[in-house]
């Protein structure tokens, strides 16, 4: 056990944290997180348009198209928002003007699209490339645009204003030369040479997205997140830095299918982990907290009770650092094995069609059964699955917690 923790500390954590703190990945993470409120609120309109109660569903049916508009213009344009906000964050990380970075990233991204001429209506931009499907393109173009901005600034390729010109005016000219490079560059590649950047990038990342849906693709992030948290490192924020763009593409495909009334294709967008695996927080600690609240050890009981309500809201730092679970050899096994087992069960339940695959992003602080119900568009079987998973985690934690409890009680006796 000591060897495992030493390995975590010396090998896994440095690699993972360096990855998650890499400048571009960090900008992608912060940029995408900024779009989450739009995705959550936007996708709620999907529940309104297709309510889980048949009578309600029939009543709103004539208005489906109107109800879906907020969804289409938020979630449906996810990559557009992401391009700007990734550009902003990346520029800020270089101490460049954030808005200039955002605007240039947005322009570079939009230039990869081909407007379509619609008779009598003028030019229209096809929305499909601006949603989740265009996420990887948005990331790429934001990085290209801001790197050009940075290069121009470093090489002093900027138009300098004479003294006395207000700062804000001078700053607006700083982006002029980078814009003069970025726009013709993307235009030449996409519109003169006819190279379909959207198609190429989507093809490039297609295997990754497919892999994310497999049983192994589900277990890998679960194990990594659990291992990092067992050493007290915020696993989901580290792993999410890399995995979230892929999870969003999976979510986008699911939500598009739901809006079109087709079967949901993907098992593993983020709500899969949120509502069926990491119930009560990473390590599926809700069951552990309940057991602790009833413990014979006054210390565990105290922490368990204090950590119960946060646990219901999927916040589990109190139990991870309080019990502690962190670097605790007695709780390590259920902390890592529990979520993995729940992941396997949930994957099969969804693969076999026993439970609807999740397609709605709801705020992560909801209690798991409610979150599971909403995330699956109102499937009551999701509540059952979440409850079964909580039970499994609890049973698995029980013998290990008992052993830990005995150790604590003995220590208490030994210290007068």
């Amino acid at each position, binding site marked *: 056990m000591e060897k495992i923790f030493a390995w975590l500390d010396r090998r896994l954590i440095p690699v993972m944290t360096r990855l998650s703190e890499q400048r571009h990945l960090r900008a992608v993470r912060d940029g995408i997180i900024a779009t989450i409120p739009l995705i959550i609120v936007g996708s709620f309109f999907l529940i309104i348009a297709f309510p889980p109660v048949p009578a309600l569903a029939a009543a709103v049916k004539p208005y489906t198209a109107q109800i879906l508009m907020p969804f289409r213009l938020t979630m449906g344009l996810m990559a557009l928002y992401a391009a700007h906000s990734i550009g902003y964050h990346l520029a800020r990380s270089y101490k460049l003007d954030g808005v200039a970075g955002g605007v240039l990233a947005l322009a570079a991204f939009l230039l990869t699209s081909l407007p379509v001429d619609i008779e009598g209506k003028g030019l229209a931009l096809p929305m499909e490339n601006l949603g989740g499907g265009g996420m990887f393109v948005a990331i790429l173009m934001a990085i290209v645009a801001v790197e050009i901005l940075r290069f121009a600034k470093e090489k002093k390729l900027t138009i300098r204003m004479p003294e006395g010109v207000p700062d804000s005016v001078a700053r607006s000219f700083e982006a002029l030369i980078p814009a003069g490079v970025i726009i013709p560059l993307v235009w030449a590649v996409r519109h003169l040479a006819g190279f379909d950047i959207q198609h190429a990038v989507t093809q490039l990342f297609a295997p990754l997205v497919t892999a994310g849906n497999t049983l192994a693709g589900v277990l890998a992030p679960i194990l990594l997140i659990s291992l990092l948290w067992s050493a007290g490192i915020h696993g989901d924020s580290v792993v999410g830095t890399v995995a979230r763009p892929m999870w969003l593409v999976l979510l986008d495909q699911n939500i598009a299918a739901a809006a079109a009334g087709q079967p949901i294709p993907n098992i593993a967008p983020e709500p899969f982990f949120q509502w069926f695996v990491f119930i009560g927080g990473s390590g599926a600690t809700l069951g552990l907290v309940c057991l602790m609240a009833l413990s014979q050890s006054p210390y565990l009981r105290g922490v368990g009770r204090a950590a119960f309500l946060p646990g219901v809201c999927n916040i589990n730092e109190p139990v991870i*650092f309080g019990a502690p679970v962190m670097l605790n050899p007695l709780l390590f096994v259920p902390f890592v094995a529990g979520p993995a087992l729940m992941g396997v069960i949930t994957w099969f339940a969804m693969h076999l069609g026993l439970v609807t695959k999740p397609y709605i992003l709801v705020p992560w602080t909801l209690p798991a059964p409610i979150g599971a119900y909403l995330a699956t568009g109102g499937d009551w079987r999701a509540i059952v699955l979440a409850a079964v998973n909580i039970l499994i985690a609890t049973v698995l934690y029980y013998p290990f917690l008992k052993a830990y409890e005995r150790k604590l009680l003995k220590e208490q006796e030994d210290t007068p």
Partner: protein
Amino acid sequence: MKILLVCSGGMSTAIVVKAIEQQAAKTGRALAVSSVGAGEFPAAVKGGWDIALVAPQVRHRLAEFQAAAAEAGVPVALIPPQGYSPLGGAVILAEVDKLLN
């Protein structure tokens, strides 16, 4: 004394803020404690704090927080894991006193 706490989303530190406030009330100390998520930290740290405390689960981002706090002239410290719980107020305040004195 003004203390700023930072974690990933500002959620779990909110619990620890309460623990510190309770401990301060018990000992009759005047404290202003607040918590933010990592994304808001660079802006928030400029608010005239005496010390900024980093949650253990984001300790791998310490360098990033230190850089932001250095600009604002605020000292930064890691919260010891055993203090990061609803019952850890005393541990954290002891650590703060040790650092500032």
